[in-house]
């Protein structure tokens, strides 16, 4: 049995093998009937862990009042190349995620649960498949659970893209004027929640809101799974108490104690400068720096790295990952990447490029069907601000040593040929 008031909660009983259903029920108390699941969820103040940080109760409320054959979708796609949290969670404690999904289904009255894991992670797919099979064998009552394996793309984890895939086999985001917008599979209203959010619901359903709130801060309660990557000795996935100073998290992963900057919230996120790493890691403290926890990514950039060159690599890759449905995204993001390259090369072109970059950011922002271009714009703006000094020296034609070194620190997958991209 675990102590629901202390860490680790989400990773309780974790070994390097997934917990079987018996083990899972031994570690966590067997699911009791919580009479007031909805009130507990409301009182817990859980916000989604997928990146947007939307309150989970609001989504549940929206869906509860819909009619029809409803679905719950568990999003374990892990679009961010720097993140490993959903994969880690689904391959240590898959039953906790499935418990949470069943509770969500019970709350909104859904009859099917779809668990989505990218097919590029065959191990995780296997673990989830086995977990679902174990449940089916036990003949648990309740909604049927299916496993779906869309291809991995950055935007495939976006909720409307995921629902589009389930509905029509295409991992492309949909146009949604007017949010909140109810996504549908066929005609059935669909609730999409991140795997980590589901696991948290699983905890709340068992131990109640009070124990959930015992960790974290008042406005951002609970624990969160953080993927620490970049210039760290032990790249790791950690479960941390929200509100822990970022420096402690970095120390646990063996990071450089005085980094140049830390990227928070993934490749659509922003940089926190290295001298502010004592900021508590929670949305309310990070909001002062215009940052958020997002999908729990912390990527460390050391002093010797060239921030501009790293930013260019990330933006180039993000441009490549655009679904190319919307003009401003399909043409705008490569243009941003070209401008950044010009800045890296420096000289007179670079000076023109930096002015153009600012203009183009303003032009592109908010004009895609999904938030992908907005994330890139946010990243570009933050990079310009965080590495202003480096950019200056690049423009003067005296780039830092890091630009000439071949070592790079952020994980960026290799670019595929456009015709090799798989969307369905």
């Amino acid at each position, binding site marked *: 049995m675990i102590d629901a008031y202390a860490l680790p909660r989400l990773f309780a009983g974790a070994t390097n093998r997934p917990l079987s259903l018996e083990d899972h029920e031994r570690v966590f108390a067997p699911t009791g009937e919580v009479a007031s699941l909805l009130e507990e969820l409301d009182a817990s103040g859980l916000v989604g862990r997928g990146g947007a940080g939307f309150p989970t109760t609001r989504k549940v409320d929206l869906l509860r009042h819909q009619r029809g054959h409803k679905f719950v979708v568990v999003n374990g796609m892990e679009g961010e190349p720097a993140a490993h949290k959903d994969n880690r969670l689904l391959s240590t404690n898959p039953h906790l995620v499935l418990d949470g999904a069943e509770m969500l289904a019970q709350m909104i009255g859904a009859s099917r649960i779809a668990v989505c894991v990218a097919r590029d992670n065959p191990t995780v797919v296997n673990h989830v498949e086995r977990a679902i099979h174990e449940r089916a064998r036990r003949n648990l009552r309740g909604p049927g659970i299916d496993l779906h394996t869309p291809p991995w793309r950055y935007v495939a984890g976006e909720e409307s893209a995921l629902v589009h895939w389930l509905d029509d086999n295409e991992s492309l985001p949909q146009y949604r004027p*007017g949010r909140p917008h109810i996504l549908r599979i066929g005609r059935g209203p669909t609730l999409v929640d991140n795997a980590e959010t589901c696991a948290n619901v699983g905890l709340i359903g068992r131990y109640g809101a009070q124990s959930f709130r015992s960790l974290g801060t008042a406005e951002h309660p609970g624990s969160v799974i953080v993927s620490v990557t970049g210039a760290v000795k032990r790249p790791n996935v950690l479960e941390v108490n929200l509100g822990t100073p970022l420096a402690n998290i970095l120390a646990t992963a063996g990071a450089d104690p005085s980094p140049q900057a830390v990227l928070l919230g993934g490749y659509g996120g922003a940089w926190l400068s290295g001298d502010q790493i004592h900021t508590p890691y929670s949305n309310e403290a990070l909001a002062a720096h215009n940052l958020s926890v997002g999908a729990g990514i912390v990527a460390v950039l050391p002093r010797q790295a060239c921030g501009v060159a790293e930013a260019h690599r990330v933006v180039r890759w993000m441009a490549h990952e655009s679904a190319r449905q919307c*003009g*401003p995204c399909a*043409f705008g993001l490569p243009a941003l990447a070209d401008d950044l390259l010009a800045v890296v090369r420096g000289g007179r072109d670079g000076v023109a490029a930096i002015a153009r970059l600012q203009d183009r950011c303003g032009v592109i922002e*908010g004009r895609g069907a999904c938030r992908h271009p907005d994330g890139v714009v946010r990243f570009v703006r933050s990079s310009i601000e965080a590495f202003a000094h480096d950019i200056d020296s690049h423009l003067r034609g005296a780039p830092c040593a890091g630009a000439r070194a071949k070592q790079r620190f952020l994980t960026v997958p290799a670019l595929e040929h456009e015709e090799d991209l798989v969307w369905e």
Partner: protein
Amino acid sequence: MGVIRRSGMFVLQVNPILCDGFGHCAELAPELVHLDEWGYPIISQEPVPMADIGAYESARYAERGCPRQALHVTKMNSPAPVSNVTMNQPRPVSRGRRPL
């Protein structure tokens, strides 16, 4: 043409997935639309008062003239409030009849 309601506001919205960037809308509604460097429309999301009949007429022209049917005129104080404004923008205060 039906009756033109002179109260309330409207915005012209584009579905970026459907839009192919032919740029007809910039000719049909020059006061509302201008094109970016790639030829895709940039439309101000500021609500325009319905009383500006010229603007409303051109918005309707653009809506009908768009070869991809990507444009949509949204009225801001229609009885069922279509919250076509994204979550973080406040909805404009309507000057006309209040929605129920």
